[in-house]
């Protein structure tokens, strides 16, 4: 066995990312890993590539115990990760990139033997049957071609024995995917092992020799090629359906919002939806499906080529979040720390901004009233904080998120657009936030929800739209809103 992972544990404050995970990799095999976001795939890859340190457990390379522990150590073992946003240098040529750090020297010290460089690169490219001129600047290549160069570089300069690919096909065309698979097969022939992470089951089943399914920080099972069965894989991914919580009873009555002809360059093609009072509408899709850009453009955070938004039948214009807030449309961004929190400021100051500038709207601050408001929401949402003056940075992720929810609630929103509302928070807080969302909907607030976890969308939404390459691929409503249906649609099975 080339690489063996035994009972590796990795925890982050508030969450267990890897819970005694097992995984192994044979020499020259293509081993696929599937699982939802947050299942632990990326964390394990980061441990293997040396970016994270494990808390406990053992890692064996060639049967010998190794800690990895650093990026350098991982490289020395021959592990190479192919990144999406590639490490390559755009202004250098293909050949220079391939041999970066190992450029063939000319007889004159300090100079590069360019002839040799080009010829060597040509030779390697030919082995993989890649038709790219080694003298071309990298910037002139397509994403797929750049990715191929990255792979070539990994095996030439870095002498990689294990190549990790994380969602390598997310921005490739069908033809390019086929080419990538030929390259992967060539790697296999050269006895190089590949860890292939993907959400696209149809691709995975075609290329992999073995397949591991991750869920909840554990490896739920390793399937051999002859055991590949999409039903089995999907059921392993989902596990036991979480205790079926009651969904909101919802009747399609009043249409509150209507979005028509929303198009975003290269992202979204002519998107139309209607949102009813108290409806929870989920949007599912892979990375690159355009769902993030879609919700951002609704509130004016992403430029749209065309966009018509109607509020109670009347056309409204939203160019900046301020315009959206006026109509009670409020957006919860996915990156809590970067886009929602004022980290250096207090709990109080984190709850109040929307209220200050949209409800209170006075020139002078009223400190007393502001604190009363904060206290009210701390109580209402049972936020655990020592005091209203406590710096928000000292709160747990779940309590921070509840502060952000409080902030949104202060303006009595009509439509809440929630982008991954429970990212990176503990299970308990997650339940509480789900409860809050449902309560809001039952009081008539319309909700548009995106999540990196399909289960979350399935649990909450009355209706789910699956997006793919900027278009609606499928729509599920009422009883059809199940994790399985959505996963199947998202993963094209």
């Amino acid at each position, binding site marked *: 066995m080339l690489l063996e992972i035994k009972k590796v544990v990795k925890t982050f404050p508030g969450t267990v990312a890897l819970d005694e995970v097992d995984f192994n990799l044979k020499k020259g095999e293509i081993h696929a890993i599937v699982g939802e976001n947050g299942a632990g795939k990326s964390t394990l890859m980061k441990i293997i590539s040396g970016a994270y340190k494990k808390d406990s457990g053992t890692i064996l390379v060639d049967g010998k115990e190794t800690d990895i522990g650093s990026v350098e150590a991982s490289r020395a073992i021959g592990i190479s990760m192919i990144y999406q946003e590639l490490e390559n240098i755009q202004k250098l040529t293909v050949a220079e990139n391939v041999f970066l750090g190992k450029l063939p020297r000319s007889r004159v010290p300090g100079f590069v033997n360019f002839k040799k460089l080009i010829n060597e690169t040509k030779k390697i490219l030919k082995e993989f049957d890649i038709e790219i001129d080694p003298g071309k600047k990298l910037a002139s290549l397509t994403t797929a071609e750049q990715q191929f160069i990255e792979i070539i570089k990994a095996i030439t300069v870095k002498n990689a024995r294990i190549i990790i690919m994380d969602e390598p096909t997310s921005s490739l065309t069908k033809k390019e995917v086929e080419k990538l698979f030929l390259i992967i097969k060539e790697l296999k022939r050269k006895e190089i092992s590949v860890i292939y992470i993907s959400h696209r089951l149809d691709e995975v089943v075609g290329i992999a020799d073995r397949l591991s399914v991750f869920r909840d920080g554990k490896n739920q099972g390793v399937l051999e090629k002859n055991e590949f069965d999409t039903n089995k894989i999907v059921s392993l991914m989902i596990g036991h359906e979480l205790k079926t919580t009651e969904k909101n009873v919802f009747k399609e009555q009043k249409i509150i919002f209507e979005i028509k002809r929303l198009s975003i360059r290269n992202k979204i093609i002519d998107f139309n939806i209607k949102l009813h009072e108290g409806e929870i509408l989920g949007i599912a899709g892979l990375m690159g499906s355009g769902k993030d850009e879609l919700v951002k453009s609704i509130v004016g955070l992403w430029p749209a080529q065309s966009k018509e938004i109607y509020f109670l039948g009347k056309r409204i214009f939203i160019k900046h*979040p301020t315009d959206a807030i006026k109509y009670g449309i409020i957006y919860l961004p996915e990156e809590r720390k*970067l886009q929602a929190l004022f980290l250096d400021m207090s709990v109080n100051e984190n709850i109040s901004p929307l209220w200050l500038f949209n409800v209170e709207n006075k020139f*002078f601050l009223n400190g007393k009233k502001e604190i009363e408001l904060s206290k009210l929401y701390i109580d209402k949402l049972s936020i655990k904080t020592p005091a209203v003056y406590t710096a928000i940075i000292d709160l747990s992720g779940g309590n921070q998120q509840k502060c952000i929810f409080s902030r949104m609630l202060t303006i009595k929103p009509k439509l809440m657009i929630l982008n991954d509302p429970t990212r990176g928070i503990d299970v308990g807080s997650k339940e509480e936030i789900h409860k809050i969302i449902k309560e809001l909907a039952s009081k008539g607030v319309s909700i548009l929800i995106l999540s990196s976890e399909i289960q979350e969308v399935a649990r909450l939404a009355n209706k789910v739209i699956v997006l793919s390459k900027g278009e609606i691929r499928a729509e599920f409503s009422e009883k059809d809103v199940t994790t399985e249906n959505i996963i199947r649609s998202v993963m094209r099975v």
Partner: protein
Amino acid sequence: MGIKGIKFTNILRNQSQLIILILLIVMFSIFTPSFRTTGNFVNLLKQITVIGVISCGMTLVVITGCLDLSVGSVFSLLNLVSISFQQRNNFLGIIIPLLLAVVIGFLNGFIVTKFKVNSIIVTLGSLSLYSGIALLYTNGAIISGVTGTWFGVIGRSKLLGIPIHVYIFFIIAIIYHILLSKTTFGRQIKYVGTNTSAAEIAGIRSNRVRTIAFIISSVSVALAVLIYSSRMTTASPVTGVGFEFDAITAVVIGGTSLAGGKGSIFKTIVGVLLLAIIINILTLYNVTYGFQNIVKGILIIIAIIIDVRVRKRIES
């Protein structure tokens, strides 16, 4: 340690500049007889009013996460404009520089926010631009205003032995303090400086907030110019040279973070006093101008290193 102990260490950490200031004053009052004279203290206060007013405006810009390097040459230009108009009419000598300051501040803010360019570079450009205009305005000549009118009252009269403009400086500082800590606009400045994208999503138009901060900075320069013009009734194209450095040094030494979001007018006043007292002591000990500049340079570098280290500790 009890609650009192925790609070005390907090005060030590948050107000270390104030403590250093008090220690300096006590120390030199004991060891340097010429320092503790009333005349010296009045002189000290007289010297800080111009830089003090400019630093108060600068504080708002710094809290939004920007810098205004143009204040020095804007000072020179407005000084010339003020005196040249005062030659015709006292009233024009006051109102024209204020109006011009609004335009200059708006342009700085507009370019920084609209084109999303680094404020240091933009205002470095305007620093050179306005110093050029100032030189051309009188072809480099020094000009004098009309003396003996009410224009000189603010700069030259005293109340209880202390010049009126010292009181005016403290009144301006109190107004800025209230603006920053007791109004919704002040809070917007803090939100924008702490996290611009979060502020935008929370419906705050960060571009507008930053532009207003730049306008306030330029208007503060105009106020400082009025104090100066009233005192001197003269103007030269180089009066403001180096003011941007002194103002930024005062703000940073006071403990307002260059990363934005954190700071106060009180801190800046402490910074202005600290800087002035250090220079005052050096002068009393006959340290030459060259060495004074070296000390100022070292001070700002130390202050910035402390700022960065404190921020890193918070982040980890």
